[in-house]
């Protein structure tokens, strides 16, 4: 089955509603939708920030995300996936990333969304820089994100209840 998949990288603000609606419009086979929204917080390690600036590797970012979406589709019975990642300067309260998964039942939608986010955090070529009053600095990768991504590696495929 061809699963509708949309991957987009944009400098514009992300319209969560429109993106989510696009996945379910006119469909009556979808029973569960999980929408994860990653939002720019106003602090990083307890320090106030003015903005995040996201760098990315154009071309590789899209294909790397697509590879993981295909992997998710092989693991879970999905009916749709939509990922939008913002780049450029992002202010606190604005959406950085949106990952929406749709399936007939909830478990597949939940697991696929979490899987995609774990991989986006550690394998997709994006880098975050923090703007503070005192200057700018690059965010360091977190070991716990690697651990979160690693836990999917040893799991058999199609283990989610359909």
């Amino acid at each position, binding site marked *: 089955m061809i699963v509708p998949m949309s991957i987009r990288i944009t400098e514009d603000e992300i319209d969560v509603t429109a993106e989510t609606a696009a996945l379910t419009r006119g469909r009556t086979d979808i029973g569960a939708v999980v929408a994860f929204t*990653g939002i720019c917080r106003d602090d990083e390690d307890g320090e106030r920030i003015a903005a995040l600036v*996201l*760098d*990315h*590797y154009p*071309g*590789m*970012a899209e*294909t*790397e995300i697509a590879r993981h979406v295909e992997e998710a589709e092989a693991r879970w019975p999905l009916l749709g996936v939509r990922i939008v*990642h913002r780049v450029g300067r992002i202010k606190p309260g604005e959406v*950085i*990333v949106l990952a929406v998964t749709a399936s007939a039942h909830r478990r597949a939608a939940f697991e696929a969304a979490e899987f995609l*986010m774990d991989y*986006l*955090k*550690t*394998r*997709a*070529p*994006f*880098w*975050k*820089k923090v703007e503070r009053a005192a200057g700018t600095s*690059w*965010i*360091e*990768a*977190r070991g716990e994100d690697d651990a979160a991504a690693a836990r999917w590696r040893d799991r058999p495929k199609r283990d989610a209840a359909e």
Partner: protein
Amino acid sequence: MKILYFAWIRERVGKAEEEIELPASVQTVGDLVQWLGGRGEQYAHAFENRQVVRAAIDRIHVRPEAKITGAREIALFPPMTGG
């Protein structure tokens, strides 16, 4: 060979990409990173901690031991922090 840099590696090198003629002795990604580190102060600073440098050959993640033969573009960058 086309080499791309991202995030703080790009800032330290001082450019986003460059075309470089590599010596025959540079065979792997690890060789490349070591060789680049010897190209002057800015490169030395960018590649001072080789452990944290990640690489992609033609937009696919590779390990330091990956051969660079036949590559069209090689990207060097710190661990990713997207999402």
